[in-house]
């Protein structure tokens, strides 16, 4: 495998007993790319993502993430990736700065670095008035943006976002994507799952999983052409139903 890709997977497979959740998937992701990882419920997205995050050892195949092996170097993977989901977020009963310090501390940032990062984020997100407020009192949109910033506080090369915009209002959802673009512009690779098909259009490339396999992988424009569809929603429906 070469180092030109931040994720490289070859015939990656995960079986639970007789059930093959992920069935020999192969794909690669370029640095700085926004890579959409779509599929119906139960298609194997979560299992595949857990393997790539070093949380689950594959049954067979091979893969590297940020240059580390998903079989042998799971601890290095965890240190070198960011992760955010709608369900796993920040602590509601800690303040803004406490949350930043807690996560920065977990990722082993030095005291001076942590201080610098805290000021940088508070300035970036324009939340200096709220810095000592408990998270629970902040609007959902602010929390989401802070959660994303905290997920990349240790400056990882890649961040995994698992349905980051679920249940968020349409304006906040779009502001969140502005942040994703910004991160990608700064060279961070973004690996994202979503059930909003308009968001699939914002990805550089999109993969669609069906029954444990990657059924399609291309740019949104090429997928629309290939499936003769007006938008990604139609593409999704056609692929998930087997054309």
């Amino acid at each position, binding site marked *: 495998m070469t180092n030109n890709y931040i994720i490289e997977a070859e015939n990656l497979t995960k079986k639970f007993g007789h059930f093959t959740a992920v069935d020999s998937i192969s794909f690669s992701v370029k640095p700085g790319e926004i890579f959409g990882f779509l599929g119906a419920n139960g298609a194997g997205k979560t299992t595949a993502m857990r393997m790539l995050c070093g949380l689950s050892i594959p049954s067979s195949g091979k893969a590297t993430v940020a240059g580390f092996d998903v079989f042998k170097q799971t601890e290095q993977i965890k240190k070198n990736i960011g992760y955010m989901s709608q369900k796993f977020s920040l602590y509601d009963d800690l303040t803004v700065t406490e949350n930043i310090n807690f996560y920065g501390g977990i990722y082993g940032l030095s005291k001076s670095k942590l201080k610098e990062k805290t000021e940088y984020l508070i300035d970036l997100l324009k939340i200096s008035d709220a810095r000592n407020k408990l998270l629970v009192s902040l609007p959902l949109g602010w929390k989401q943006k802070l959660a994303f910033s905290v997920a990349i506080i240790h400056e990882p090369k890649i961040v995994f976002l698992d349905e980051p915009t679920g249940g*968020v209002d349409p304006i906040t959802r779009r502001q969140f994507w502005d942040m994703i673009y910004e991160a990608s512009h700064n060279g961070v690779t973004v690996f994202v799952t979503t059930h909003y*098909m308009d968001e699939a259009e914002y990805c550089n490339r999109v993969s669609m999983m069906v029954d444990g396999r990657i059924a399609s992988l291309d740019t949104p424009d090429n997928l629309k052409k290939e499936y003769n569809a007006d938008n990604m929603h139609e593409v999704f*429906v056609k692929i998930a139903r087997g054309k």
Partner: protein
Amino acid sequence: MNSVIIENISKSYGDVLAVDDVSLTIEKGEIFGFIGPDGAGKTSLFRMLTTLLIPDKGNATVEGFDIVKDYKKIRSAVGYMPGRFSLYQDLTVEENLHFFAAVFGTTIQENYNLIKDIYVMLEPFKNRKAGKLSGGMKQKLALCCALIHKPKILFLDEPTTGVDPVSRNEFWDMLGNLRKEGITIVVSTPYMDEANKCDRIALMQKGKIMETDYLKNIISRFPRKLFAVKSDGMFVLLNELREYQFANSVFSFGDSLHYSDSRENVTKDNILEYLNTKNHGNISIEEIEPNIEDCFMDLMSK
């Protein structure tokens, strides 16, 4: 005929006003959708209408019964599917159904015709524990359990959240069939595109109802002309349109931008003229009809 009448209902938790002076009516036999993001107050409102929570202020009736005084009557008249899966995980599919039927003093056989279409999809798994079902199957079982006593009205709190677009469509098809049986269906959802599956909708944000009407009426009240704009450089285009002195709003919508203009008589040539002063290839500008998200965002920024 009204199935639900809500008059000036409010509910606070400490300092947080979760439901703020909500009034509306839901007609018998319609599919009524509460549409809004997390924290809009949808669940609190549903819990009050299903008698699980007492309002601080205001009144409401469901099927003619008062939600405070007649709570027992309401409980046998409504089917409620909460947002979190709340069936017994260590009972099988069949045991769960029997249990809910028994609690409501009925049997599966008595109302089988109502759940038949949904239950046949579950039947291959009838001896499986509910906790071991896939997300889509859990959802179908929960719906069967909510229907087993033949309720007059169904309250479904975010039944499609986290569900993929294909399974969401199937779920809405099931609701369409139940509607034909005359059951009033009240649904909440954070997915705005599901508005077109409802008869009438209420757009909810921060405890308040911003609009209640048929989708097409809400769309017809969108106050400005709206354009879909594309070019080779979408990210640059977004910023340049935002800087345009006549811009009212600019939002990403899939592969295009939705642009609304503050001038009443704006044409697409006006916008093209401006963009031609910038460096864009393959500009396309189309006047379009707003969709539900355009309307929601416009109402939010008022």
